[in-house]
């Protein structure tokens, strides 16, 4: 099957810093792929490049064969890519319902003048939008919270609301930036079930960044590992777990028995840089 997302030779320089270097990745429709790597490896930068938040220095990004480079983020969203953010970006002072309703705007289906004059199509479409929003919120168990302000939701609910909002934009490809961050074991279990459910229900392809290895290993079918802006390994979870390059990226070089003994102890995986 042909790839849904194709990234080739993607490079991004920030001044003298090469944040992403010759990055390549292919996602087939329906895949669930994890993008992992130590902090500062450039994972979020890749997300920002795919969604058009920043433009690449060089490289190619294609969704279903169509070029995405050079388009503004909202156009890329219309093509079928939605995302969540590492530091949750909800519309905090709006209700949960409004957060979702706003994402329906490109599909609102009535003109400004129809809205201002309150013509029949406005009422009909608004009713449909509210129904759809409630249905989507219901899947995530947030329907009861619809009138509350987004900022008043507990942390886990905020993360889920952000996924709901992204889904309302009707993506083919959903990018999740650390969806399990700050969740406890029970919430993570529920999140995994939800991700599987929405993938089947909405026929999604998913790419997710995550640091919780147990979560990544049990949910992703394939992993791509980044370090210093490059892909250093790609493969199934088992292959990745045993890849010496990956172990080196996360844990540093191993101490050779009988060596000079000067190699420093491996730093913790998250604190390397």
């Amino acid at each position: 099957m042909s790839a849904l997302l194709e990234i080739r030779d993607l490079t991004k320089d920030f001044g003298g810093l090469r944040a992403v270097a010759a990055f390549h990745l292919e996602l087939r429709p329906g895949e669930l792929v994890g993008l992992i790597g130590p902090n500062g490896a450039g994972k979020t930068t890749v997300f920002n490049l795919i969604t058009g938040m920043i433009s690449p220095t060089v490289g190619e990004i294609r969704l279903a064969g169509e070029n995405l480079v050079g388009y503004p983020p909202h156009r890329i969203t219309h093509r079928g890519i939605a995302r969540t953010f590492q530091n949750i970006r909800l519309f905090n002072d709006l209700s949960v319902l409004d957060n979702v309703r706003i994402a329906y705007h490109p599909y609102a289906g009535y003109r400004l003048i129809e809205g201002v004059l309150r013509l029949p199509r406005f009422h009909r479409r608004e009713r449909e939008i509210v129904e759809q929003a409630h249905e989507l919120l219901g899947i995530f168990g947030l329907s009861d919270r619809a009138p509350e302000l987004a900022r008043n939701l507990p942390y886990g609910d905020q993360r889920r609301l952000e996924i709901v909002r992204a889904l309302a934009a009707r993506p083919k490809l959903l990018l999740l930036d650390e969806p399990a961050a700050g969740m406890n074991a029970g919430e993570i279990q529920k999140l995994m079930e939800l991700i599987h459910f929405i993938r089947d229900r909405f026929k999604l392809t998913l790419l997710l960044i995550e640091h919780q290895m147990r979560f990544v290993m049990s949910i992703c079918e394939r992993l791509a590992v980044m370090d210093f802006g490059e892909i250093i390994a790609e493969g199934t979870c088992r292959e990745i777990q045993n890849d010496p390059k990956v172990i080196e990226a996360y844990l540093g070089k191993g101490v050779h028995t009988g060596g000079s003994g000067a190699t420093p102890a491996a730093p913790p995986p998250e604190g390397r840089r």
Partner: protein
Amino acid sequence: MRLRAGWIALLCAAGLYLIVLITGRTGLLNPYWLQIFQFAGIMTVSGLGLNVIYGYTGQFSLGHAAFYGIGAYTAAFITKSAATGGWMLLPALLAGAVAAGLVAFLIGMPILRLRSDYLGIATLGFGIIVKVLFDNSDAVLPTLGGSRGMTGIPHFTSWTWVFLCVIGAVLLVRNFVYSSHGRACISVREDEIASEAIGINTTQYKTLGFVLGCSLAGLAGGLYAHLYTFLHPMNFDFLKSLDVLLIVVLGGLGSISGTVVAACAWTLLLEGLRVVLPTEILDWRLVIYPLLLIVVMLLRPKGLFGGNEFRFLKPEERR
């Protein structure tokens, strides 16, 4: 519930309209105060415009008076050169609103990419340019009067006109902000990056909010021109932009009710103090009202209404 609130509001509005109309006609309300009432309505329309720009779309503008002035001069130019009956006010007001909106569209395209303070500075600069243009307008069109002011504008604005415009503006803004397009504007205020990420063309909605708000300023300007029958560039300088900004912030950003109440209260208070205060401390008027402003901001930092609305202005909550 909402339906009843709507009827009560309608009755109150109709009552207010009739009371002012009748007392004005019979002379119970002297012409001076009738003019103040009309001016309060004009400030309401202009304030609603700035609320769309700053309160709902989140774009900080310090050039509101420029658009108010563009509307005023455009409308006045039309009625003065056409020299026909009072019905000319309607096309003149519309032309004023369209002219202000058009200029807002052209100036908005380059400057709306700036954020917060920088946009404020850019709109401030634009306001100064427009004021200078008004000052020298007689070089191009002698009718506009330049720095000597524009005289001989027919007195077409009546309480009915003002009242209809206020009702129209309130309904327009309410229907706009509670529609999908209005929500798109609000999302730009809340988080521009997140809005783009869910498919909102933020540039387009910033421009929409700005143009709509400036058109309302233009409409208000047209009413103003035909109320006082005299226009002077001084009436459209930076300080006048600040007045509208104060009204909007005082009433509460993103609150229609707040703008209406604050615009009326501000206008009536400013004139009311003139009557109430003894002559020797009359000059303290301009000290009292900034003090009041400070007190309100300390007690209610989000404005009188803090983003809330009278019930009749809110759409019903479904489910």
